[in-house]
C-alpha cells in the first residue's frame, strides 16, 4: 500500500499520505470540492461554507467564507466547485437561484467576487471548464443552463433544455466544446458550448430524474449517469446512438457518481435517501459493490476523489455534519462476505453444485471448470495490486445426474387423479382409495386404507358397498375374514413398524403374516381392551345385504343428507369468494362432519336386519361393543408421520382429509400445514391443478385455504376489439363496449363464460345450460343449433 501510493502520487505535485479520518462540521453539508493539489477541501451547505486543510492526521479549518451577521440566502449552497486551474477561484450554486464566485485572493473578509442572479429557481449545479479559466456553467431548476464568462457581468449564453429541471451539468474532460446535462424527466442532453440554440443529442437515460452524470476521466466516450430509479448506467457516446454498455443496480436512488481515478472500470456512488453508505463499483461486476464505506450516519451528500490521479483517497461530506477522508485500504469488501457456493436443480432432476475449489479439493481427479481462471484484465497499472481486484475465487462445478427411470412418479399422478377425498361416506372413500392403490400395485398403501376404514367406521356401517367389490373382485380381500379384530389392530401397529424397517421395499401379505403373529404375542395386553372376538366377522357379514335393502337405506340417507343427492358437478358453478378465512373453515367442517352423521344413521337402520343376511357369520354378537375411534388415533398419527417421512406426503394428506375431524386434532397444525404445502407443491409441479385445488379446498388449515384466494386476478381481452382490458371495470377502453355479455341475461359475465364453438355466442354457464335444455337454438338468435355437452 505504502509503495503504491508513492508510485501514484509521484504523478502529482506533492506526495499525498494520510489515514481514514473525519471532522465534525457545524451543519449538514450539501456538497464538497477539492482543490487541484489535493491539500484543501471546501464544504458547502445551507448553513456552512468552510475550507479545511487536509493534513496528515486531521482536518484543520482554514477559512470560514460564511461571513456577516445574518448571511443572505446567497450563502446557502446547493453545490460548490473549486477551479482546477486557478487555485483561488471557487463557484457556488445558491438555493435561491444565484450563482456566486469567490476569490480567495481577496484581502477582505468577504471573499465574494461575482454574483449572477439570472436563474429564477434554485441552481442545482455549477461546473468550471476543465481547461478554460474564465468559463463557468450552471444548471438550474428553471430548466435553463447558463454559461458565464467571469470577466463579464452577465451570462454569455443560455441553453434551454426544454425538458424540466436541470439536475447536473458536466464539461467533457476531452472534448473542449462539449458538455452533458441531465434532467428531472430522465433525459440526458449533449451540448456544444458554441451552439446555444439546440442540443447536439438527447436520449432518455432513466425513468424519473437523472440526478447526476460524470464523464470518464480517461475514455472520451464514456458517461456515467445515476438516477432516482436506483440505477447507474454507463453510456458509450462515441457511437451514433448513445449505447448503454454497463448498468449497476443499487438499493437506493443515486445522488452522486464519480469515476475512480486510475481505474478504468471503477466508480463511486452515494445515495440521497435511506442508504448512507458510499459504494465503489466495478461496472463489470454489477451485482456486488467492490468496496463500501460505511462511516456516515446520515445520507452522504458529496463525494470527491482527493486527487485526480490517486485512487486511494476518497473525501465525503454528509447530512450528519461530518467530513470524512476514507482510505481505500480501510474499505469493507462485501465480496468477502458473499457466499461463493451455488446449487441448482435441472429440468430433469440433475443437480449442479458449484463451490470454492478449496472446499472440494479433496477430490483428486476433479478438473477445474474451464473458464474459471480467467485473467483479470490490467489496464493502467503494471503490477496488479491484489487489494485492487475482486477476490479471485475459482469454483469447481459438479453435476450430479439422476436416473430418469428410478424415480418415475406415474403412480403419484394416477393416485392423485383417482383418489376420492370427499363426497361419499367415509367407508366408501376408504374402499375406493384402497382399490386405487391396489391397482397401482401398492398393496401396503391399499391395506392401510382398508384398515383405516375398519378402525374408524362404526361396525354396522362398515358393511355396505365396500365389501361388495372386495368380495367380487379382489382375491386378497377375503383373506381378511380369517383375521379377527384383535389381529387387525395389532397388525396395524406392527405393519407400520415393519414398514419402517424395510423402507421402501415391497411388502406383501406374506410378510405381514409372520409379523402379525409375532406382534399379537407381544401385545397381549391389548386383548383385554379389545373385547369380543366376534366383531370382525360381524363387520363383514353385512356385505351380503340384499340390494333392495341397500337401496332403501341409501334413500334414507339421501333424504336426510341433501349433500349427496345433489348431482356432483365437475366444478361448482359459482363459489362465493370469501375474504375471511374463517368462513371456509366453517363450511368445511360441515362437510367433514356429514359423513359421520350419516354413518350413525346407517347404524340405526341396519342393526336390525343383520342376522338374516350373514353368510359367513361364525358367531353373532349379542351386543355390539366396539373400540372408540379415538383409540386408534395415536397409531394413525404415527402412521401418517411415517408416510410423510418416507416422502409419501400424498398418503399423509389424503388420509388426513378423508379422516377429517377424526384425526385432525391429533396432529399439530404446523405439521399439517407443512404436509399440505408439500403435497400442493408436488401436485402443482405435476400440473394437477384440479387436484391441488381440491386439496386446498378440503384442507382445514387457514393458511392453506387462503391460498385459493391469492392471485385471483384474471386478465381478459375485449371480445370485440381483441385488445387487453384494463383492470378496472368491464368496459373496453377502445371500443366502449361491454365485454363478454351473456346472451341469455344480457349482463356482463364475471365468472365462468361458456360459448358455442360454432357460433361463438355464449354467456353464464348456468344460463346457457338452462337455455339449451328448453331450446336447441342459440340464445343470441343467430339461428345456430348449439350443442351443450
Amino acid at each position: 500500500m505504502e509503495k503504491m501510493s508513492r508510485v501514484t502520487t509521484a504523478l502529482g505535485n506533492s506526495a499525498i499520505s494520510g489515514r481514514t479520518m473525519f471532522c465534525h462540521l457545524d451543519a449538514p453539508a450539501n456538497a464538497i470540492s477539492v482543490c487541484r493539489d489535493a491539500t484543501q477541501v471546501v464544504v458547502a451547505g445551507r448553513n456552512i461554507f468552510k475550507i479545511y486543510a487536509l493534513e496528515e492526521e486531521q482536518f484543520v479549518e482554514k477559512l470560514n467564507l460564511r461571513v456577516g451577521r445574518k448571511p443572505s440566502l446567497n450563502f446557502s449552497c446547493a453545490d460548490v466547485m473549486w477551479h482546477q486551474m486557478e487555485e483561488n477561484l471557487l463557484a457556488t450554486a445558491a438555493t435561491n437561484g444565484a450563482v456566486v464566485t469567490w476569490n480567495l485572493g481577496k484581502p477582505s473578509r468577504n471573499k465574494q467576487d461575482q454574483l449572477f442572479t439570472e436563474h429564477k429557481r434554485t441552481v442545482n449545479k455549477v461546473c468550471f471548464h476543465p481547461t478554460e479559466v474564465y468559463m463557468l456553467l450552471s444548471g438550474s431548476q428553471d430548466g435553463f443552463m447558463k454559461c458565464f464568462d467571469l470577466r463579464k457581468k452577465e451570462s454569455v449564453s443560455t441553453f434551454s433544455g426544454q425538458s424540466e429541471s436541470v439536475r447536473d451539468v458536466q464539461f467533457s474532460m476531452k472534448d473542449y466544446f462539449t458538455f452533458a446535462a441531465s434532467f428531472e424527466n430522465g433525459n440526458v442532453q449533449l451540448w456544444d458550448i458554441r451552439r446555444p440554440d439546440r442540443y447536439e443529442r438527447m436520449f432518455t437515460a432513466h425513468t424519473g430524474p437523472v440526478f447526476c452524470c460524470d464523464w470518464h476521466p480517461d475514455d472520451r466516450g464514456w458517461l456515467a449517469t445515476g438516477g432516482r430509479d436506483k440505477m447507474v448506467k454507463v453510456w458509450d457516446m462515441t457511437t451514433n446512438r448513445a449505447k448503454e454498455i454497463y448498468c449497476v443496480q443499487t438499493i437506493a436512488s443515486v445522488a452522486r457518481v464519480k469515476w475512480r481515478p486510475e481505474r478504468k472500470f471503477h466508480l463511486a456512488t452515494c445515495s440521497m435517501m435511506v442508504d448512507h453508505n458510499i459504494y465503489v463499483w466495478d461496472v463489470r461486476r454489477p451485482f456486488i459493490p467492490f468496496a463500501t464505506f460505511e462511516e456516515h450516519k446520515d445520507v452522504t451528500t458529496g463525494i470527491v476523489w482527493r486527487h485526480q490521479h490517486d485512487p486511494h483517497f476518497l473525501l465525503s461530506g454528509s447530512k450528519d455534519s461530518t467530513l470524512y477522508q476514507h482510505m481505500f485500504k480501510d474499505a469493507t469488501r462485501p465480496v468477502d462476505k458473499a457466499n461463493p457456493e451455488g446449487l441448482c436443480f435441472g429440468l430433469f432432476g440433475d443437480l449442479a453444485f458449484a463451490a470454492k475449489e478449496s472446499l472440494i479439493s479433496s477430490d483428486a481427479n476433479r478438473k477445474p471448470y474451464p473458464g474459471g481462471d480467467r485473467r483479470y484484465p490490467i489496464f493502467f497499472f503494471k503490477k496488479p495490486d491484489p487489494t485492487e481486484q475482486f477476490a479471485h475465487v475459482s469454483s469447481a462445478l459438479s453435476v450430479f445426474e439422476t436416473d430418469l427411470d428410478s424415480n418415475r412418479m406415474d403412480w403419484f399422478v394416477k393416485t392423485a387423479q383417482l383418489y376420492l377425498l370427499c363426497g361419499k361416506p367415509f367407508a366408501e372413500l376408504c374402499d375406493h382409495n384402497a382399490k386405487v392403490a391396489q391397482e397401482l400395485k401398492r398393496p401396503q398403501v391399499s391395506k392401510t386404507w382398508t384398515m383405516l376404514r375398519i378402525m374408524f367406521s362404526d361396525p354396522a356401517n362398515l358393511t355396505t358397498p365396500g365389501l361388495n367389490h372386495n368380495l367380487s373382485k379382489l382375491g386378497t380381500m377375503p383373506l381378511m375374514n380369517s383375521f379377527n379384530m384383535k389381529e387387525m389392530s395389532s397388525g396395524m401397529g406392527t405393519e407400520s413398524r415393519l414398514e419402517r424397517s424395510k423402507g421402501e421395499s415391497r411388502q406383501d401379505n406374506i410378510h405381514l403374516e409372520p409379523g402379525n403373529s409375532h406382534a399379537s404375542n407381544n401385545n397381549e395386553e391389548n386383548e383385554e381392551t379389545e373385547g369380543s372376538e366376534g366383531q370382525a366377522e360381524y363387520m363383514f357379514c353385512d356385505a351380503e345385504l340384499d340390494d333392495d335393502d341397500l337401496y332403501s337405506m341409501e334413500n334414507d340417507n339421501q333424504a336426510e343428507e341433501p349433500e349427496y343427492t345433489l348431482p356432483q358437478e365437475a366444478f361448482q358453478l359459482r363459489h362465493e369468494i370469501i375474504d375471511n378465512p374463517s368462513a371456509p373453515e366453517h363450511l368445511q367442517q360441515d362437510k367433514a362432519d356429514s359423513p359421520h352423521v350419516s354413518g350413525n344413521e346407517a347404524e340405526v337402520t341396519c342393526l336390525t336386519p343383520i342376522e338374516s343376511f350373514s353368510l359367513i357369520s361364525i358367531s353373532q354378537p349379542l351386543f355390539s361393543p366396539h373400540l372408540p375411534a379415538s383409540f386408534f388415533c395415536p397409531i394413525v398419527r404415527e402412521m401418517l408421520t411415517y408416510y410423510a417421512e418416507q416422502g409419501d406426503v400424498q398418503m399423509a394428506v389424503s388420509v388426513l382429509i378423508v379422516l377429517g375431524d377424526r384425526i385432525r386434532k391429533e396432529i399439530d397444525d404446523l405439521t399439517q400445514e407443512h404436509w399440505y404445502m408439500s403435497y400442493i407443491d408436488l401436485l402443482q409441479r405435476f400440473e394437477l391443478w384440479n387436484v391441488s385445488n381440491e386439496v386446498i379446498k378440503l384442507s382445514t388449515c387457514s393458511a392453506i385455504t387462503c391460498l385459493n384466494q391469492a392471485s385471483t386476478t384474471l386478465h381478459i381481452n375485449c371480445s370485440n376489439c381483441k385488445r387487453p382490458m384494463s383492470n378496472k371495470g368491464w368496459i373496453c377502453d377502445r371500443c366502449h363496449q361491454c365485454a363478454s355479455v351473456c346472451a341469455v341475461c344480457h349482463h356482463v359475465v364475471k365468472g365462468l363464460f361458456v360459448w358455442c364453438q360454432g357460433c361463438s355466442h355464449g354467456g353464464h354457464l348456468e344460463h346457457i345450460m338452462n337455455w339449451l335444455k328448453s331450446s336447441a337454438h342459440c340464445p343470441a338468435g343467430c339461428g345456430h343449433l348449439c350443442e351443450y355437452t
Partner: protein
Amino acid sequence: MIICTNKMEYPLRTQCQRVHKQVMVNGEKERVSLLFMKALVSRGSVDAVSQQMASHPQYLESFLRTQHYILHMDGPLPLPYRHYIAIMAAARHHCNYLVYLHSAQFLRVGGDPLWLQGLEAAPPRLRLLDHINKVLAHQPWLTACSHIQTLLKSGEQCWSLAELVQAVVILAHCHSLCSFVFGCDTDSDFVPLSKSPNGTPPSFCPFDAANGNTNVPQLLATPSEHITRRRSLDSSCDMVCLKERIQKSQEEREKREERLLQTQTLQQTDMEEEEEMIFFTDPTRFITDPDLCYQEFARREEDHFQVFRVQDYSWEDHGFSLVNRLYSDIGHLLDDRFRSVTTLPSMHSPDLKRAIWNYIHCVLGIRYDDYDYGEVNQLLAQDLKLYIKAVACFPDATKTPVCPLSLAPLKTSERIHVNLLIMEARLQAELLYALRAITQYMIA
C-alpha cells in the same frame, strides 16, 4: 353463422350509452365519460367529487387511479382499515360527504359496524393513529419523529413502517380531498337520504339498516337474491348487498349484545337505536379534541418552529424515494398527480399557479429559497388569498366558502382548477411533513 354482437341492443349497453350521453358534451370529454363508465361498472356509482373533477379529464384519470390504488389495491393495510382511516381523516374536517361515502365502503368490504359507533369502538391500533391524524390535518409542522416512534414502538398494537406509510398517504389524501369537497361545495349538495336524480351517487341508505328494520331481510331472504346479486351492474343491487351485509352483521352484533346485556331494559335498547341513527350522521364520533384547528404558522415562529425548507427535503428528491420504497408504486402515482395538476391547460398563468401553490405551502410552514414571496401579494388579490386559506386550512362543512370576486367571473372549470391546486399543494405539504418525520425516525 356469426352475428356481430355489438349490433344488438342489450339493456346494459343502452344504460351505458345513457351515461355516455349524460356526460358527453363534446368529443374532448369522451375520456371522462369512459372513466365514469368504468367507475360506474366497477363500483356501481360515480361520486360527486369525480363529477366535479370531470372538467379536467387528464387530472381526473390520475386522481382516480391513485384513489383506487390506495383504497382498493395491494397494500399492507386490510381494506376495512383503509376506509376507517379515511373516515377518521374526513371527520377531522366535519366532511359528512366523505364520512358517509367511506362508511358505506367500510361496511361493503366487511368492516365491523360496531366500529362506526365511534373511535372508542375501533381497535386500539387505529385509535393510536388519532394523534397524527389531528396534527397532520391542522398543524402539520408539529409532526415529529416522536409521533412516528410512538406508533412504531414494538408492542401488541404497533404499526409496521409500511402500514404507517399507507395510513399516512390515506390521511393526507382524505384531508386534502376535504378541502376540495369544501371548496367545490359538494358537501352541501349531499343529502344522505335522497338518491340523486340519475341514481348514481352514493348508493347508501344508512337509516333503514341502522334502524334494524326487519322487513328488509325478509324481503332479501327470497331465492331471487342469487339472481339479483349476479346482476351487479345496477346500483340497486349494490345497495341490496350492502343492506344485507349491514343487516347480517347487525344481527350478529345484536346477538352478541343480547348475550352480554340480557338484563337491559327496553327503554335502553330504544336509546341505543337512537344512537345508532346518530352515528351515521355525526363525524365528531371519530375524532378527539375537536377544538384543535389551524393556527397561524407565522405566529408560531417564535416558538422555535423551524420553517421547512423545500431545498432540504423535497418531494422529487426525498419524499418520492422514501414513499415508493415503503409502499411500492405509490410514488409514481402521486408524482403523476402533482405533475398533471401543474400542467393542466388553464387560463391561469404559470406564475399564478406557482403563487397559489407556494402560498399554501407558506401558510403551512414550507418555504422555497428560490421564491420571492412578494409575488404572492402581487398576483393574488386579498379575497382570493382569504379563499385559498379558508379552503386549505379551515375546510369545515358547516360553513360555506365565500367565493372571491376575482374568481366569480371565471368559468366553473377554472374555479375547480384552483381547488385542485389547493388540494394537491396541501396533499404534498402533509406528505412532506410526515415523510420527513419518518426519515428522521429511520436515521435515529
